[in-house]
């Protein structure tokens, strides 16, 4: 966090007093908004997505990274296979019950700030395979999704539209309010368990209660 006492050269006192966005107790801390801008500007143009394909949508994701759509224009082309080096998870395809523990584990391994794009109908809400017995109806049952892109599969342009939307979202974030600088902001999702069926461990008490004959 920026120190309240250090002033960037060139910031005038008039600005400090007149900026209505600054709360009273941080009145002389105006450059924090400027820092937000720089911080977000850098962040939004150098997302490192995780090289992580699930199903059909992954093919369109690869096409997005290829010559015609060229993800590098966004500065997002550096796909990292390791979750520890990635800050964006593109859930590109059908999330199955067998796969969801791994997805959640990967998410937990990603450093914050981390973002999730649900690409395609399947990741958004189950998609055409929603009724299947091994299909999770939407990754948002487990992970906080930032952008949903419906379509089966979304065109590369649609995926890029999602990127633009995510950039917009990042732009609006402020250092003061983002969760990962707050105490207890590290929200680790418990990895679901595979028992007789997929078990969301956050609901285990409820399950035990309800199934008791």
């Amino acid at each position, binding site marked *: 966090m920026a120190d309240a006492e250090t002033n960037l050269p060139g910031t005038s006192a008039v600005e400090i007093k007149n900026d209505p966005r600054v709360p009273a107790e941080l009145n002389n801390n105006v450059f924090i908004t400027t820092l937000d801008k720089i911080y977000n500007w850098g962040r939004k143009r150098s997302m490192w997505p995780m090289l992580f394909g699930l199903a059909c949508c992954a093919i369109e994701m690869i096409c997005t990274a290829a010559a015609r759509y060229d993800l590098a224009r966004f500065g997002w082309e550096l796909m990292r296979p390791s979750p520890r080096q990635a800050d964006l998870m593109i859930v590109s395809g059908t999330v199955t019950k067998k796969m969801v523990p791994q997805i959640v584990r990967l998410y937990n391994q990603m450093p914050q700030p981390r973002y999730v794009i649900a690409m395609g109908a399947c990741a958004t*809400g189950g998609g055409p395979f929603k009724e299947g017995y091994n299909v999770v109806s939407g990754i948002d049952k487990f992970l906080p999704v930032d952008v949903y*892109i419906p379509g089966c599969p979304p065109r590369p342009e649609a995926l890029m539209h999602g990127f633009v939307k995510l950039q917009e979202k990042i732009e609006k974030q402020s250092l003061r309010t983002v969760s990962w600088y707050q105490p207890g902001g590290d929200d680790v999702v418990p990895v679901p368990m595979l028992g007789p069926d997929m078990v969301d461990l956050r609901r285990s008490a409820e399950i035990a209660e309800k199934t008791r004959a």
Partner: protein
Amino acid sequence: MSLLGSGILKGLGVTLKHFIQTYAEDFKYIGKKAGIEPRPLRRQNPGNHGMVTIEYPKEHMVMPENFRYIPFLVKDTVTNEDKCTSCGICAKVCPPQCIWILRTEDPMTKRPVPAPKEFHIDTSVCMNCGFCAEFCPFDAIKMDHNYEITSMSNRKTELIFDKDRLMMPDTYHAGIHPADWARELEDKKAEEAKKKAAAEAKAVADAKKAAAAAAGTPAGPATKTAPATKTAPTPKPPAAAAPAEPAQ
């Protein structure tokens, strides 16, 4: 056995050629490509080397007419009525069953009225197959070209499209599906001509019947008029008439 490494050099030659060609192509299109204004981009001619990048948020590729994304409903701008008659065919042919239609009922007679009361499409289930548009007998549902539908907050409210969200004027449909629209207009014209012919035939038949009744000769003209009266209702199938003249 060729010289060791010649294969690699040959391969590197290919990559070098690609590298140079990208710039050669740039020189070819200098001035044309440097335009800052967004330009509608047509499909690339396969005669060009390599591939031209579509700078997406700035420029959009023109979608081919057949392109399908999420369906929408067509509203007739002339009569200001929706074309949908809630016949339910789209809901039946939908493979993932993502269309929900609530049929309107006449409050008095409890008979169905050919218009949907509610129409929902769950885009988080829709598989963009286009069957609904293909099998709709009334040209009331079409596949949209707009792929820029993302939700940032709540998919349950934003990505389940209701009737208001789905309804588009037919001018929009005509804009993105010009050939389909032309076919529709032609069909409409043919239908009207048919109806007109049928009405005329009926009028003639009625006149004849009246004349026959007046003359009081039952044998000859009666057999003659029979086919005419029979043909009269056939060009007007009960369902097909509904969209042109709404029941209200």
